[in-house]
């Protein structure tokens, strides 16, 4: 039996049953079920937003068919379970690219919409949901509702970033973007602190993609040192197939102690020092640029049985102080963080009521799950984020408090009024608990 867990493998969840949804044209009866349901595709959400403990899951990985693609306009219509990898392998040889890609290509179109994902081009393109032209939503009443920025607008806005709670997205239509080729011309710049990061990110508008990795175990005058990566699409063919498998796969869950403070300190330092020169330019394949970890299958097993948590937050602009404070808290704790990812979000507004991205600096760090001390550190980070008028990303979350959720997502009540009464998730019950 296939296991249904989230990418962070924390928290565990027991589902009453899993209903495979394979054909969008077949009648899908949800009203007969006694328990709540939640769509699930490939389980790439990190925390509990893709879990429905005590309820049922609708496995939509079988809804993996394309419906229509207009090669002259780049408008693509496909079923909800199509992966971004499938879209890229179709689109790239034809000169098109997804308008927004996250750090992995193994997510579904439905998941990309339900989490209103963002990528390295948020400062120019906004979120994934901003490029969705319409979608069909199946409600538990059996009704199929066409939603778009013009039709059923409230339901559309609730479904973008709606964590799968407004109904089952059966298919969606989105606008791809033209690219000159499958290559990426990129530049990698070593920087020594947060001030340099802030300076570099003022040049963001000159590049389609920008992101930074920082050594989050460096303290004092080294705090916030890292590598700034930026790039643009470039002409040239791709030599690898998007549908290809990972080069190596972590075969089994490793002992939890393998990722520890010592190994991560070495890894963080090595990553920073791997680049000797301050500036490095090269043109290469788009896959390693966008999806560096997809080369290692099931890398989440590195963290062992207890799993890991990813903490991703955004703090309002002019809040470098808050980012420094967050990094300092992490470095001073005894927790085990991975590399941190830092990026400045732009001002393009997300259509989604519950969308996470907003203008400011976003920071993402993985932590090995070590129990109460890990959770306590993340609670302290929440306080810093709240003080900086920021938010924590639900797609990565397994633990933020209900009070903080309501603070971070002020539209949550108008969102709640659009939730399908039959749909729920472990996350939703947690953040709406009284």
């Amino acid at each position, binding site marked *: *039996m*296939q296991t249904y867990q989230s990418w962070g493998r924390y928290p565990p969840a027991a589902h009453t049953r899993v209903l*495979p949804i*394979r*054909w*969008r*044209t*077949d009648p899908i009866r949800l009203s007969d079920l006694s328990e709540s349901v939640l769509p699930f595709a490939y389980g790439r959400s990190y925390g509990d937003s893709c879990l429905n403990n005590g309820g049922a899951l609708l496995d939509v990985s*079988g809804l993996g*068919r*394309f*419906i*229509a*693609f207009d090669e002259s306009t780049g408008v693509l219509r*496909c*079923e909800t379970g199509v992966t971004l990898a499938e879209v890229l392998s*179709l689109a790239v040889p034809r000169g098109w690219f997804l308008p927004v890609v996250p750090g992995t290509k193994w997510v579904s179109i439905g998941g990309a919409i339900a989490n209103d994902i963002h990528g390295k081009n948020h400062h120019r393109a906004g979120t994934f949901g901003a490029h969705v032209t319409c979608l069909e939503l199946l409600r538990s009443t059996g009704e199929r509702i066409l939603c778009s920025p013009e039709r059923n607008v409230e339901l559309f806005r609730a479904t973008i970033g709606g964590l799968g709670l407004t109904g089952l997205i059966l298919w969606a239509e989105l606008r791809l973007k033209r690219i000159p080729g499958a290559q990426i011309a990129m530049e990698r710049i070593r920087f020594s602190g947060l001030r340099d990061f802030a300076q570099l990110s003022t040049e963001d508008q000159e590049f389609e993609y920008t992101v930074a990795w920082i050594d989050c175990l460096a303290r004092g005058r080294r705090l916030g040192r890292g590598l700034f990566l930026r790039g643009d699409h470039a002409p040239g063919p791709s030599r690898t197939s998007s549908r290809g498998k990972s080069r190596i796969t972590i075969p089994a869950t490793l002992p939890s102690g393998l990722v520890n403070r010592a190994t991560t300190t070495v890894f963080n330092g090595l990553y920073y020092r791997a680049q000797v020169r301050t500036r490095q330019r090269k043109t290469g394949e788009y896959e390693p640029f966008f999806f560096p970890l997809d080369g290692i299958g099931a890398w989440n097993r590195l963290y062992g049985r207890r799993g890991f948590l990813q903490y991703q937050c955004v703090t309002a602009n002019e809040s470098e102080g808050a980012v420094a404070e967050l990094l300092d808290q992490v470095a001073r704790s005894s927790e085990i963080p991975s590399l941190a990812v830092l990026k400045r979000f732009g001002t393009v507004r997300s259509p989604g009521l519950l969308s996470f991205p907003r203008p400011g600096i976003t920071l993402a760090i993985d932590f090995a799950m070590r129990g109460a001390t890990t959770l306590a550190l993340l609670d302290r980070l929440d306080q810093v984020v709240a003080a900086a008028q920021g938010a924590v990303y639900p797609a990565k979350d397994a633990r933020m408090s209900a009070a903080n959720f309501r603070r971070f997502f002020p539209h949550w009540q108008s969102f709640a009024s659009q939730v399908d009464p039959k749909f729920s998730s472990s996350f939703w019950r947690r953040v709406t608990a009284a």
Partner: protein
Amino acid sequence: MSPLPKTGGARVLIIGATSAIARETAQVYAASGARLFLTGRNGGRLASVRDDLLVRGAAQVETAELEVTQIASHRSVVDAAVGSLGGLDIALIAHGTLPDQTRCQEEVSATLDAIQINFTATVALLTLLANYFEAQRRGCIAVIGSVAGDRGRQSNYVYGAAKGGLDRFLQGLRNRLYRSGVAVVTIKPGLVETPMTSGMPKTPLFASARRVGRSIERAIENRRNVVYIPWYWRPVMAVIRWVPESIFKRLQL
């Protein structure tokens, strides 16, 4: 023997085209610009598959609803496929059901239904297709059998008997059509992750429908006789066939 046209631009008839394995094979053909004629029981599902294959690059996709046990309708469907594609280079027969063995033991009708779908209907289609390909003196007929047909086992012998009978039929057909330059490919998948096996507990022996579907396209391209997919089922089944019946009958397989 005239060579089979390369996959690109091939004209392919697929019976049971909404099955998970057939869809994967069809995707390979679509990506190479093939022209396809698909049959299946459900019109809505067929239309979904057709649209998908057109996006993936198929030059033409036609569909027809077909219940394979309605044997009287076979001829018109084969004629429609030949007519709309202007001929056929490849026919892939992929329909089938996995019956509940216990129910088959209790109900004669369940057993006969399983034999009807998995053997009789297939043989009826093969009879028509064999004559078409034999007259044309080129092309390839591929049929999805099963490792379950290699030996009867208590847990699955009705399905096994149908697939085993098919295996013999295809041996004879291959022998007959050899002189006409028509290849007959017997495909024997092992355990595959598909809706048909969704009720079975998954083990590492299960292969993905994608892997199996792609291997089928290669087997057809290479005009293989009998292929086990994945390959390791060939030695496994060789061992299982080799066990003497006096011992085999005592096993809980």
